[in-house]
């Protein structure tokens, strides 16, 4: 069963003060996320990531389309007890302590009273906030709030977790902790849908990624597949203080750093390049095929498609 089935979900807002006109925030999104999958929803700021999450959480209402979550209609109240949500830059009731907040959310999520307190302590320990459990949230740092946000999202042991920019604003250590937690959720068999614009995180964590830009889904692909595509080039690293002339004539793009040279050249020139190194008696360190990075895939998908260019021109034409 698919964990999330988004069926042509669309959202437009009315903007303008006097003459209200619709502004499309999300264009007919169709996407399926399988159970147990870690899915990264990538896109620049304002791309439509948060709008999608808000639609799925029932915080905003779709202009068109629908979605099914864990086999139920997204409006079905039963869905909510099986999902967890961490909003972007979460803000909680700052008059509460971390323990009180989790207890309150546990009550609202229907976590049985018996065992709720133990569950809260378990979650606080899991995110490393046991020592601050009695402190009011107004004294929490951003990183602590983010960790608490994760704790509240998984407090009721949901099957599906939605995380909106979970690494946003965190220091490297904090990001590492969040990454580890997402990995743990994967091992527990949870489905994780998270939005981010930090590509290295997505590459390290996700099974699949979807790229959204200007409210439109530009592409969906398995990370392993996307990053295994060869580029028809090889990268040769060897010991030298200068680039041999023979290598330059083969069309290599080389960079010298200290006693090492890093050269990228067409795959068909690989044997010839090795011959040059042998001839010059240079020590080979590595030879690897150049693969496409997630970043390249992302940049490629962000470029406007033919259809978009046409739509843009039509819009300008109508505007003129």
């Amino acid at each position, binding site marked *: 069963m698919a964990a999330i089935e988004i069926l042509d979900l669309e959202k437009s807002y009315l903007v303008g003060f006097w003459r209200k006109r619709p502004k499309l925030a999300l264009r007919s999104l169709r996407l399926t996320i399988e159970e147990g999958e870690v899915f990264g929803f990538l896109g620049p700021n304002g791309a439509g990531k948060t709008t999608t999450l808000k639609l799925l959480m029932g915080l905003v209402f779709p202009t068109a389309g629908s979605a099914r979550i864990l086999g139920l209609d997204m409006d079905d109240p039963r869905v909510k*007890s099986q999902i967890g949500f961490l909003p972007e830059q*979460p803000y909680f009731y700052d008059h509460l302590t971390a323990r009180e907040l989790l207890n309150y959310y546990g009550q609202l999520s229907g976590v049985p009273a018996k065992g709720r307190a133990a569950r809260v302590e378990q979650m606080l320990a899991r995110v490393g906030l046991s020592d601050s459990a009695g402190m009011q949230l107004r004294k929490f740092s951003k990183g602590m709030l983010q960790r608490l946000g994760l704790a509240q999202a998984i407090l009721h042991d949901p099957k599906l977790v939605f995380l909106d920019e979970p690494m946003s604003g965190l220091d490297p250590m904090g990001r590492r902790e969040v990454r580890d937690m997402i990995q743990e959720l994967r091992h527990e068999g949870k489905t994780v849908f998270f939005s981010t614009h930090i590509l290295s995180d997505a590459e390290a964590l996700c099974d699949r990624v979807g790229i959204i830009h200007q409210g439109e889904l530009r592409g969906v692909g398995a990370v392993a597949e996307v990053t295994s595509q060869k580029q028809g080039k090889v990268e040769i690293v060897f010991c030298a203080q200068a680039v041999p002339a023979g290598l330059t004539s083969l069309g290599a793009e080389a960079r010298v750093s200290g006693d090492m040279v890093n050269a990228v050249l067409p795959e068909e020139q690989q044997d010839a390049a090795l011959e040059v190194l042998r001839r010059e008696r240079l020590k080979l360190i590595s030879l690897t095929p150049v693969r496409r990075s997630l970043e390249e895939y992302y940049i490629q998908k962000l470029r406007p498609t033919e259809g978009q260019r046409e739509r843009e021109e039509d819009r300008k034409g109508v505007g003129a």
Partner: protein
Amino acid sequence: MNSGRRNANAGNPNAGNANARIGYIAFNTFREAVRDRVLYNLIAFALLLSGASILVGEISIDVERLVVVNLGLTAVSLFGVVIAIFIGIGLVSKEIDKRTLYTVLSRPVRRWEFVVGKFFGLTGTLVVNTVLMAIGVLLALLYVAHRFEKMDAWVLVALYFIVLQFLIVCALALFFSSFSTPLMSAVFTFALFVIGSLAEDLRGFARITQGVGGWIATAVAYLVPNFSALNVISQVAHGDAVPGRLILYNTLYALLYSAMAISGAVLIFQRRDLK
């Protein structure tokens, strides 16, 4: 976490019941208000005013009781209304602005439960505040009169009517804040409180006005909350009794009016996008 552990809500699709959730939200709202320092400042101010009424009472020969009851209950009423508006307007909008609502509504909480829970939480806060301020007034009364008399029981009825006023003010603040900014909600609610306090005069004016103007005046007079019927401060200050029928009518009126305002807030909030 143990991967093999059962889902915490397994077999519990509705994850608790609506009444319980409303109760949790109400308690959290109450707790938030109780921990707000501004609230204590307002209560302290109201108590100070009650205390000051002793001073004014002492220089008002033979009418000490009248002055203390009048000033004390007016202070309770005014400060209570200020607290009701001050907290009421932020109940929903603050949660949207600060996005605390996101983590609540992404749980098995329906929007109407949230609004009703907030209303009960604020009402509970105001009842507790009123009890505190009422103790101040009664102590002031005891100080100037040296003992309680039978007619002082009507002061409690006046306090009960003040609580009914708060109920309506809370509901109105919640209603306006479900679609408007906090500032505008405060202006609307306070304006309605002032107009509603003159409701009897408005009704009198409507009765003597003819034609379309009369129709409009009648509609407005009956649409605005009748706070003047809920104000018996002057009556009880003079030691006059409050008819039992008025207590019943006022109770029903306040409950009905609040229910309508809350229903309106729910209807609007149900359809609102939380941007």
